[in-house]
């Protein structure tokens, strides 16, 4: 504590010289004592009832961890109507289109392969994926839009923990919801089309068309979360994700001439819709097959997530 010469009256008596000898306080120097604070006992060095930090809360304290962040993110995601709307739309689309396709096939005379039975769900999942991408983007971009992200990061200064918690909650939610929908559609289609097929789908094919597809959709959701984190803007990030899904197959339509045909082929083979269909057993010449699509999406989501972590930690919130 310095300068004991500070006036001890909030308002000095009239005419009191302004202490000409005393230079105004220099910025940067240890500040003077805070007037006649009734709370002076709390000054550091003068042990007050609160100890060195001043006030000590009676509420017991424990260090927060990732589990707390996950619980918090779960509360966030379940307390918004947009979650209900996006996932609801996804369920209705996947199940509705799966049922419609099954009925259309069951009324036709076509003989179907084992793949076709499960494959009737593919179109529904392709469309149903879009609201999941929206949800993935909104999970973080809505916080940037409202400024809530600052509050979130104040409560949890570990930015990687926040993003990881969001990824765990969003990924699990997207996976479980898609799994419910794809299982239901697979059961409907096998029941409706059981008398039309040459052989039953194998357990492996079932697994790929339900769990595999659900993982694929969940990973696409995580990719959207990463893109949302990188772009911090809802409309921009949603547009980017839609473009990523729809643009390559669309572009390949216009790349038919010999010179650019190869590019068009690759764009089509590795487009997200085509990859999704391969999980349902669609076969493409020298393109991804089996579980390849899932690994490609995994790599894509992992790379984007790594970038998102870097950006989030480096940038000003």
């Amino acid at each position: 504590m310095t300068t004991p010469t500070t006036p001890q009256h909030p308002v000095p008596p009239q005419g009191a010289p302004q202490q000409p000898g005393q230079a105004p306080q220099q910025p940067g120097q240890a500040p003077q004592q805070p007037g006649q604070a009734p709370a002076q006992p709390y000054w550091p060095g003068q042990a007050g009832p609160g100890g060195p930090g001043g006030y000590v809360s009676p509420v017991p304290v424990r260090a927060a961890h990732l589990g707390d962040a996950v619980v918090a993110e779960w509360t966030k995601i379940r307390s918004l109507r947009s979650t209900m709307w996006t996932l609801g739309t996804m369920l209705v689309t996947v199940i509705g289109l799966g049922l419609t396709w099954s009925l259309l096939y069951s009324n036709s005379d076509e003989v179907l392969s084992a793949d076709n039975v499960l494959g009737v769900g593919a179109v529904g999942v392709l469309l149903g994926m879009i609201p999941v991408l929206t949800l993935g983007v909104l999970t973080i971009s809505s916080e940037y839009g409202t400024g809530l992200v600052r509050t979130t990061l104040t409560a949890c200064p570990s930015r990687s923990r926040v993003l990881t918690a969001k990824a765990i909650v969003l990924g699990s939610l997207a996976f479980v919801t898609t799994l419910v929908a794809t299982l239901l559609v697979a059961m409907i289609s096998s029941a409706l089309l059981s008398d039309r097929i040459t052989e039953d789908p194998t357990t492996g094919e079932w697994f790929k068309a339900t769990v595999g597809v659900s993982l694929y959709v969940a990973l696409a959701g995580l990719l959207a979360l990463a893109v949302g984190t990188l772009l911090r803007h809802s409309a921009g990030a949603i547009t980017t994700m839609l473009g990523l899904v729809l643009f390559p197959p669309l572009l390949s339509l216009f790349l038919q001439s010999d010179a650019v045909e190869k590019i068009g082929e690759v764009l089509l083979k590795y487009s997200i819709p085509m990859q999704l269909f391969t999980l349902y057993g669609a076969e493409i010449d020298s393109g991804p097959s089996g579980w390849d699509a899932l690994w490609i999406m995994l790599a894509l989501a992992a790379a984007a997530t790594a970038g998102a972590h870097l950006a989030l930690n480096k940038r000003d919130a």
Partner: protein
Amino acid sequence: MIELEGLTKRYGDKLAVDHLTCTVRPGIVTGFLGPNGAGKSTTMRMMLDLDNPTSGTVRIDGRHYRELHDPLRTVGALLDAKAIHGGRSAYNHLLCLAQSNGIPPARVREVLDTVGLTSVARKRAKGFSLGMGQRLGIAAALLGDPRILMFDEPVNGLDPEGIHWIRTLMKGLAAQGRTVFVSSHLMSEMALTAEHLIVIGQGRLLADTSMADFIARNSRSFVRMRSPEQERLRDVLSGAGIAAAPGPDGGLDVTGEDAAHLGELAARHGITLHELSPQRASLEEAFMRLTAESVEYHARAGDGAEPPAGAPDTPDAGRPAWGTDWRGDRRGKES
């Protein structure tokens, strides 16, 4: 306790915060004052590790914010009352914050009660007025019962009753031994709550002083004299070696003399006085004088930034214009 050391933030060419060094102590309300755009919010964001300083450090009870294991228990902050997702209810907004720090949900109801939002706790925040948003933000700050509280312009949007409430609240929190750091661009507001003042302008520290000291030093005091024999009074004063400047309404303003002494002087010469009143320039004016230079940079164009003429300009030529000293000190130190 919050310690800032050489805190600097640069956006391109512009220095938003310029080597800010100061300490915010527990047990008192510290006002953080500066005109709009002075760098208050940027400083507060850097304190909370939301923005990365270009250089310098902030220590919260000796640690960097990112190292706090239980941030909400240590620091409660209200930065922006609108930083709420409109689709979420007040209760859920607070609940997810509480959960992220392992704070029991019962505490959410407590703080909702404290700020008076219990009746609208389940309503979506979209419909909240600015004042209600402000209260919700304060509830979030109080959630962890923290040792340190930071409020960025907390009275914005509050009605008079709300303003009174938050003043009492802040004083109460400080009296419990907490560190309370409140930013404002209104000197008059700070005069009622803060015991210590940190004033910045253009990101630079202009003053770091107790409120009492700030008042004593910055609000010029003078004695206004008025007489039907104005000319004779002036002669008598100058005869006694007292400089007097014409006041705004035909009076004489005398600085550095006791009112009693001036009255006796007039009486000795048989001069009738119509007014003999000690005057004190308002705090708001003192604040504007203090920050005038930093504001001038922005708004000089139309002379709009001139401090209002509450008191006439310095009647005493001997005393340097306010602020010259510290400016000199600063330049000296920087070079």
